[in-house]
């Protein structure tokens, strides 16, 4: 296989033969060869000087790395809750009929491969699919048929896209995406007027201690969901021993219903990178890594362009802002499709070329992070907040929000409403406020903070979005009254967590799957009151998992049992509770009957 050998050799050389760059190697090799077969994996292992099992440990972990060819056009159709709301089933059927193959297969002529995928960050324009990395939003059955016909007619992805690009920078020559931003409400933190370099110009006149003091004074907290104080994180990293330190930006938003990082990276990438440079100045780092989820690979050329531009402006590279010794540069790192990599230590593992398994803590990344060096990992939105704090001062920042939650929050509103999209609001808005602004009526429930958050009903819509009440990483999914909450929402989330568990901790690995089994039973009308209690009790076991994913994986189930109990009660099997209604006697003895010639 000279083609494989040649490609692998070239790609590995591109990354200096460095095994910690395995993710980059895999993405590029797959891009050129179409998939990562055993033979290719063996070749990569050989050239990098590592065992083949180690290479395949990484390849097989990530959703978008394929062992088998995926067709000339690999179609990944989102199967998230919101996609289903928007008519995903009909689109999927149209794809299957047009392609002549099922999902998980490649058409006989090798042209079209159909695959399911978890939320791709397009909840405001579903149903959406990735085709060879390019986004096709707002699909309809007709559009699906048209696409497949175009593929068969020999068109390229660019030709399939056409030229009706989305708004703002989606139409930038380096992006040319059909994606829309849908920024419905511009706040003062992220979507206000911004000029690159203004904050850095102030920063270079300060000491690192002053920068951290400002961020602390503004009580900036992490916007990824956990809400850790940013200034404290920077301070830990600054004090950590070691001369090599790193600043990571976490743009691996995988929580279903979240898409703010996508919009911020499209409209305000300079601000995010400026935030990284400020963090680097504060902690003493010279290298930064912007870790972006695989689903946003279509932004790669654009982000490279932005980085080059910032270097040319003297806002990255050596002597930033004219300050000798302030050297910092940022490289891009793409993921391979794994929700758990949004957890900061899993993200670091992934950036090191490994499976994205969260680390045991302590030590925390600020002590031992990327390549065992002190590493700050900040969310995209958090870095934007930091830029504004340095620009406008902590007093300005502290005037926004509530008593305990300062600043703004970028919400991603999707589901059953007239105006899905991005809403940047001050902390302290109530759920009702948002619903009204988004044009949502007849609301049954809102999933706040995505599946790992909470599902609440109308009696709680007066609660406010704030760290002290309803904390959220941004996902805000509206569920209308006409939906079957358990089947359309909760079961979808249960399946999501089962597929996204890294598989390391016993409770998470096993109970995510077992919970799905029990929930399916309940949805099918064969569950018992005992099953419901059992699911509730499992939450306690899940609390002892290593990471946030495992600890919250049963939240969709447990919060709906808590807030929508009658929905469960209505579905329980009638009859004598001493029997097991899910037990199918006829199915259990079918083999026997067949063997003895009965039935």
């Amino acid at each position, binding site marked *: 296989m000279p083609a494989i050998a040649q490609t692998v050799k070239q790609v590995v050389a591109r990354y200096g033969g460095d095994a910690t760059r395995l993710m980059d190697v895999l993405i590029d090799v797959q891009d050129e060869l179409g998939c990562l077969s055993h033979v290719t994996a063996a070749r990569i292992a050989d050239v990098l000087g590592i065992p083949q*099992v*180690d290479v395949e440990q990484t390849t097989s972990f990530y959703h978008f790395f394929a062992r088998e060819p995926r067709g000339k056009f690999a179609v990944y159709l989102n199967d998230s809750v919101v996609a289903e709301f928007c008519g995903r089933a009909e689109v999927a059927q149209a794809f299957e009929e047009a392609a002549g193959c099922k999902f998980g297969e490649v058409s006989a002529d090798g042209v079209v491969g159909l695959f399911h995928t978890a939320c791709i960050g397009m909840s405001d324009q579903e149903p959406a699919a990735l085709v060879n990395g390019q986004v096709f939003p707002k699909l309809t059955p007709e559009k699906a048929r048209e696409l497949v016909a175009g593929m068969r007619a020999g068109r390229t992805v660019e030709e399939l896209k056409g030229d009706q690009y989305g708004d703002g920078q989606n139409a930038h020559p380096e992006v040319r995406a059909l994606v829309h931003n849908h920024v419905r409400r511009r706040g003062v933190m992220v979507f206000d007027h911004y000029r690159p370099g203004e904050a850095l110009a102030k920063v270079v006149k300060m000491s690192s201690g002053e920068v951290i003091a400002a961020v602390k004074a503004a009580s900036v907290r992490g916007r990824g969901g956990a809400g850790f104080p940013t200034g404290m994180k920077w301070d830990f990293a600054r004090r950590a021993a070691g001369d090599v330190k790193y600043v990571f930006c976490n743009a691996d938003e995988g929580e279903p219903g979240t898409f703010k990082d996508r919009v911020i990276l499209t409209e305000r990438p300079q601000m995010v990178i400026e935030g990284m440079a400020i963090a680097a100045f504060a902690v003493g780092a010279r290298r930064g890594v912007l870790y972006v989820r695989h689903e946003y690979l279509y932004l790669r050329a654009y982000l490279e362009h932005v980085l080059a531009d910032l270097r040319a402006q003297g806002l990255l590279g050596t002597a930033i802002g004219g300050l000798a010794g302030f050297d910092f540069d940022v490289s891009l790192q793409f993921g391979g499709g794994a929700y758990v990599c949004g957890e900061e230590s899993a993200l670091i593992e992934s950036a090191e070329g490994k499976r994205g398994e969260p680390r045991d803590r302590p030590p925390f990344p600020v002590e031992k992070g990327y390549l065992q060096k002190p590493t700050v990992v900040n969310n995209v939105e958090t870095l934007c907040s930091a830029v504004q704090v340095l620009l406008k001062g902590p007093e300005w920042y502290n005037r926004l929000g509530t008593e305990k939650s300062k600043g703004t929050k970028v919400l991603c509103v999707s589901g059953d409403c007239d105006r899905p999209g991005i809403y940047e609001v001050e902390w302290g808005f109530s759920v009702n406020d948002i619903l009204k602004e988004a044009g949502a009526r007849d609301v049954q429930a809102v999933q706040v903070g995505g599946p790992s958050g909470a599902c609440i009903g109308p009696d709680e819509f007066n609660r406010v979005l704030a760290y002290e009440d309803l904390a959220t990483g941004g996902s805000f999914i509206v569920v209308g009254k006409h939906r079957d909450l358990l089947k359309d929402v909760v079961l979808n989330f249960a399946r999501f967590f089962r597929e996204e568990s890294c*598989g390391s901790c*016993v409770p998470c690995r096993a109970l*995510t799957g077992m919970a799905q089994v029990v929930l399916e039973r309940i949805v099918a009308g064969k569950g018992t009151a005992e099953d419901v209690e059992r699911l509730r009790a499992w939450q306690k076991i899940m609390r002892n*998992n290593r990471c946030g994913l495992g600890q919250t994986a049963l939240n969709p189930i447990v919060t709906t049992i808590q807030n929508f109990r009658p929905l469960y009660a209505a579905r329980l099997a009638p009859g004598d509770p001493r029997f097991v209604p899910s037990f199918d006697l006829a199915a259990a003895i079918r083999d026997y009957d067949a063997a003895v010639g009965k039935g």
Partner: protein
Amino acid sequence: MASFVRFTLDGKTCLAEEGAQLVAAAREAGVFIPTLCNYPGIPPKGACRICTVLVNGIPQTACTTKVAEDMNVATSTPELEAFRKSVVEILFAEGNHLCPSCERSGNCELQALAYRYRVTVSSFPYLFPKRDVEAWHPKLVKDHNRCIQCKRCIRGIHNAEGHAIFAFGKRGDKVVINIDPDTSKDIDDELAQRAMDICPVGAILRKGKGFDVPIGRRTYDRAPIGSEVRP
């Protein structure tokens, strides 16, 4: 020079070397904390979670916790014991564990812990997964039905060059442990034996060696797990 730290273990003040692994320090102090994925001499990886204890009131795996001055550890609350029993039950329902026909019976840590927690039947839904038995390797058999994915083999077994022989494949409930065809090719009997010994269950076996010690005369046939730890 190691320095000693004072910590509290189930209300009792103890002394341990600073930075000692909590599982080992507790054992020294006469307290048994059950483990499955932990193995002396290899880096810990809090994966099975069965050694979860309360460190200053917060649940933490004892295998990944280092003893520190004034640490207050509770190892055996009713909740923790119930959790441990659950972990054992989950593992029995997750894989296919048929003790009477297993070469490892009597030497199996999972089986021994099931006895310790008086597990008669798992209260979790049995999944009866379809898993393979890999027998292509000249020296080893890998029975995936019994594997509890503890990663002891991944972390503890390397070839002469220090390269991995075992590694994870896939993720979530589909996770499997794969054997590298190349790095495992030339392993000697001694390393094969180490691989078999490092496995807490009967998932890694040396070919032809499964019954070298007859059932009835095996480790946990003689004394229950944890009974060697005495206050």
